[in-house]
Each structure stands twice: as C-alpha cells, then as structure tokens.
C-alpha cells in the first residue's frame, strides 16, 4: 500500500534506532496519546527495540476506554428499545455496562448494527423511516467531523428518525490535565497525528510553553513513531521545549479549515467526565441547540445509573502514565480482555488490552 509500506522499511527503522541510541544520554519518560500509536509501538516490537533509557507510557487516547459508564448504560438502555435500530462502531460493541454490552443486547433480540462510518447510519435511517435510528458517536477530534457531517446530512435530508449519542472527547485538555497533575512523570509528548490533521497543532504551543515539555506531532507507522521519538529525545537532550511536526505529509499548523468550520457549526465545547480520570473542563462536544432534535439524550428518556468502578482497577494511573498495565496486580489474572475490570482492558486500543494481546507481561 502506498504511503503505508514504505514507512515500515526495516533498514530505515534501524537507522532511526541507531540515531536514537547515539543521542540519548539519560532516562526520559515519553507519552504517546493515541491508542493507534500504542498499538503500532507494541505490534512491531518497537518498544523493546528502543534503548532502555526511554520509558514509553501510554495516554488516554482511546475514546472507547474513556467513555463514562453512565453513557454506556444510556446506550444499552436505548438499544434495548424495540423501536430503535442502534448503530455503532465495532470498538464499542463489547464495552460492558453493569451487566451487558451491545452484543448481549443483540443476542437478546435488540436491533444492534455495526457500521464502518456514521454516514452509513444515516443511510440506515433513510431506509427505515418507521424506526428510530441512533448512532453512538464516540471519538476524538478525528472522528468528530464525520459525526458532525452525519447530523448535517440528516438535517439536509429532512430525517426525523435519526439521532446521535454524543460522547466526544478532546485531546489538548487531556494533555493539560496530565501535565498539570502534581505527580506527573511525562517529560515529552508524541501528539496524535490524525487529531492534528483535523485541528492543526497551534493549540499545543501554549501547553509546551507552560509545562516546558517538547511536543512532537507524530504519525502512526513505525517510521513515524521512530522519527517522532527521535525528535522528542533530541529536544529533551538539548533542553528545548516547543512544538514540532513529524507528520508533515498529513498535518499543517492550521489544520483542516472546512472540518473545523463544520465542527463549530454543529458542536459546542463542554465539560466532560473521562472514565478513569475525572471531569476535565471544556474537553467534550455537545450538539448545538439548532441540532437538538438529533440529540439522543434529549430524544430518549432512559434511566442510566452508572455502577461504581472496580476498586482494584488502576486505569486512572495507567492513562496518566504513572503506571504501566503490568504494574497492576490484576493484570492478566482477574483482569483480561475476556473479563475486563476497567476501561483500558476493554477496547483493543486500550493500553492494557494492547499489552495483554502482545504479551508484555512483565
């Protein structure tokens, strides 16, 4: 595949690893914020090839993992309704609420359908005018434009049977929350490349400045991550902090203007609770008043009581980079992808699930 295969070249990867080895002189803790990046690090074994001085910690970059339990309960309650076709991305299907997940609801007779794109959910609504179609709109800024477009399209088509359950989360506030915490260990950041493709990276300048932390906008292929790590290590070694862009083939400083326009047209920024972390101010999206007829929270009056989180689970500390999945006593024992105790083990993008799947047991 063009623009994929060449970024998995072994010789070039070895060159970057050598460059990193010859640059690093002392320990550094670097966080990558995106689940997809975590996945690449571990799937290609890059984390084990990096010199020992570099400790990789993994941020809360998994929108599935940080969706509050209360929101999941709400989704399940709506999906149980016989008049509803509940549509969702694949990742959300196995996220458990208090006693069930979307797949369980499907098994019990609920009309739960997996879609690849939110625009497919709009098509389902068009094809089923006598049913209510709800789309579980989960995601970071990368997914928000597609979700916004789905709502806009539904409006243009005059659909009255389509709504979204909005569970969007934003990255820069999360980074601030991590860096601003008293026990923060993160010294350098690999910022999420596709979030920045949409939003640009102008928001990160003040964060890098405030916390004296180098931030490098990084892509998702092995060479991207290696170059991003190299640039971060170099900045740390040279005592520089600021924002750099590794993923220049897809990201510009300003980002995607039409996408940002679409977002501000459809969404407004609000405070949002992050599972495992707590409420982060101005870190989520809600639909604007003129689109409230497409808001599933307002359309469906359902009870959504969140069960208490499991006490053993240290998800919060993992997602803030204070601990690693294999530091957790329950990891791989009581807590596995088959019976997860907390958020990061639930989704395949979560740090705990990635560690478990790829055998990073200790």
């Amino acid at each position, binding site marked *: 595949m063009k623009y994929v295969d060449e970024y*998995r070249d072994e010789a070039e990867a070895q060159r970057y690893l050598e460059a990193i080895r010859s640059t690093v002189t002392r320990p550094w803790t670097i966080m990558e914020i995106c689940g997809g990046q975590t996945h690449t690090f571990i799937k290609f074994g890059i984390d084990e090839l990096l010199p020992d001085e570099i400790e990789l910690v993994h941020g809360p*970059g998994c929108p599935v993992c940080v969706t509050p339990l209360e929101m999941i309960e709400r989704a399940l309650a709506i999906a149980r309704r016989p008049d509803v076709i509940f549509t969702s991305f694949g990742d959300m299907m196995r996220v458990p609420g208090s006693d069930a997940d979307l797949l369980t609801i499907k098994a019990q007779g609920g009309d739960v359908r997996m879609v690849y794109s939110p625009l497919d959910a709009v098509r389902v609504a068009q094809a089923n005018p006598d049913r209510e179609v709800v789309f579980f709109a989960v995601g970071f800024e990368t997914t928000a434009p597609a979700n916004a477009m789905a709502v806009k399209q539904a409006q243009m088509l005059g659909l009255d049977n389509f709504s979204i359950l909005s569970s969007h989360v934003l990255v820069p506030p999360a980074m601030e929350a991590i860096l601003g915490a008293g026990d923060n260990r993160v010294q350098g950041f690999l910022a999420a490349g596709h979030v920045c493709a949409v939003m640009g990276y102008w928001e990160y300048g003040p964060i890098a400045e405030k916390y004296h932390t180098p931030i490098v906008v990084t892509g998702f292929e092995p060479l991207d991550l290696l170059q991003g790590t190299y640039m971060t290590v170099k900045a740390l070694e040279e005592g520089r902090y600021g924002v750099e862009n590794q993923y220049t083939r897809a990201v510009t400083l300003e980002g995607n203007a039409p996408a940002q326009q679409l977002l501000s047209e459809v969404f407004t920024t609000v405070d949002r609770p992050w599972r495992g972390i707590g409420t982060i101010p101005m870190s989520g999206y809600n639909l604007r008043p003129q689109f409230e007829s497409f808001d599933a929270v307002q359309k469906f009056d359902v009870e959504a009581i969140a069960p208490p989180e499991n006490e053993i689970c240290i998800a919060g500390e993992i997602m803030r980079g204070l601990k690693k999945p294999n530091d957790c006593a329950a990891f791989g024992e009581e807590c596995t992808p088959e019976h997860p105790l907390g958020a990061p083990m639930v989704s395949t993008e979560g740090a705990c699930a990635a560690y478990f799947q790829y055998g990073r047991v200790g």
Partner: protein
Amino acid sequence: MSDDTPLDVDGLGACPIPISDYPNVLLAHGGGGSLSQMLIEGMFAPTFANDWLNPLHDGAVIEIDAGRMAVSTDSFVISPMFFPGGDIGSLAVHGTVNDVAMCGARPMAITVGMVIEEGLPMEDLWRIVSSIKAAADEAGVAVATGDTKVVDRGKGDGIFINTTGFGMVPDGIDIRPERIAVGDQVIVSGTIADHGIAIMSVREGLEFETALESDSASLGGLVEAILAAGGHDVHVLRDPTRGGLASATNEIAKAAGLGIRLRETAIPMQDQVLAACEILGFDPLYVANEGKLIGIVTSEVADEVLATMRSHPHGADATIIGEVVDDHHGRVLLTSRIGGNRVVDMLSGEQLPRIC
C-alpha cells in the same frame, strides 16, 4: 480462491423441483411425508447419485480396508449464504474434506445434514445442492447419506448444514501436534486472510468494492502430494479456519509444549487483503482461511515439500514462514518487519473492526 476453473453450478441444469408449484421450501418438505420424498427423489438422490447413497436406506454401508479411519464433523452457519468465491454448500464440503485431510487421510465420503428454514426459496436450495455436488466431485468424495429437516420461519437463518467426512490414513503417516520438534519448518500453502476478508466485503455495514474471493477449496490432493514427498517427516497439518493462522499455530505450540517463531515478512498476503485489513483495523493473522493449510515438517524434507506444494494448483504461493523453537514454550512469537518481536496470542472473542 481455487486456482481450478470455477465450479460450474449452472452445468447441472434447472431446478428439478417445479418452482412454479413450490417456489419456497415448506415445513412439509422436512416432515417425512410425500413432500419430503419429492425433495429426496426429485432433487437430492439424482444429484448425488452413487452406490452408497442409491439404496436410499436409513444409512449407508461402506466397505473399507482394515486400518485407521479419520472422521471429522463440522456445522456450517455462514451468512450470507452466497459470497464471492463460494457458498454455504461448497464451504460445507471443503471444510470437512479438509479436516479429514489434515489427519493425513484420503477423504472418501461425506454425509450431508441440512436444517432448512421454512420459506427458503427453492431456487436457493437448488443452487446450494448443486454447489455441494460440484465441490464433492472436485474433492473426489461421494455423498453417502444425508438428512433434511425444516424448521419454522424465524428459527433458522436460511439454512444450516452439517457435514461429517471420513477417510483412511495410510500406513506410516502420523500427524499430531505432539510430533513437532525443535528445528521443524512451518510452511503455509498460500496467501492468508482471503476468505474472512471476502466475507467482510459483502457483510452489511462494512461492504467494500473488491475483486477478492473466498479461497474455499478442497485440499485433499495437496495433502496427498505433501505426504508423498515428506511421509513420516510430516509432523502436523492444520487448516487455519476460524481464528486464522494465529489460533492454529497457538493450538499446535500449546499441545506440543514448544515455541513457534514466525517471520512477518515471509507471510504471503494479497495486496487487497492487506489493504482491507488496514481499513477495517483487522489483524490478518486472526482472519479465517478456507483453502489453505499449515504444514510443520522436518528441516530435512522442508525444501522438497515446499517444491511439491508449489507445483500443485492449491500451493502455488507456498512459503516457509517460521520454525519450531526451544523457547517461549506453548507460545507463538512473531518477528515484525522492522525487526522487533511480539507475542501472537490466542484471540479472545471475535475480531471487531475498529476506529482507533
């Protein structure tokens, strides 16, 4: 996909049951009465005709040589029933024939048990039955006996098929995971993940345009060739169906108590299959194959077996992808294309497409 010419379903002619009278399968067609007889004598018996089946007795009596017999059974519930490169009928034949072949046996016959949902279009049933016949002919097996039930509408998802197959294992052949030894070579017969991705391409909600087809095929002939070349040095044969290459190798490693090391760059894949996995977020190692096998053989015979496979239509892309090691016992390790290692674990649950 099979490298042979496509199964000529249409060559068997129009549906023998008058469609104008019976456009759909009825409950009575499975009831044991005259409608059942019509289906058996009108469609199944003439289509599958052979000496074991023709008496149309409760069961078939088959004479075999003394020795070891391999038996395998499998049930097929795939949806959609018809997909690029095959259908539930051909899959039901190939799947069971292959399981018998993976025991080192030469498949000789299968049984076909069908559970049909009331209302299934008769035309669809005829297509499936024709497909079973064509696949059985290609595999060199006879349909020895069968059974048909019809269940109420809503209780059956179209059609479910169970096939049981059997065949004799030649002397000197001993296929078991426990036989693998350190230094054995792991060979795959061709490109992986073709079937699973072909099915995804027609699954509602995930469709994409592609020329990809399922690789569903009978591997009895390929297995015969492998055993002729490697004989007792062929330690394991396994077809990586559900759970893909990853699950199959894990099962073998675990049963044998040894480690298996794979090389990512050696694993053959079609470009389009790789692209589809990228888009959907699937790991191809866990995607089903229906016309491929893994062979674990001694290093002494590896080259010869590989050459033999490559000269067979179902093994043209055969490649050595790894080896058995005295390390990480019971686990499979993959060396990635950039040189790092990762564990290839058993799949927990079904793989779902992801956005992250």
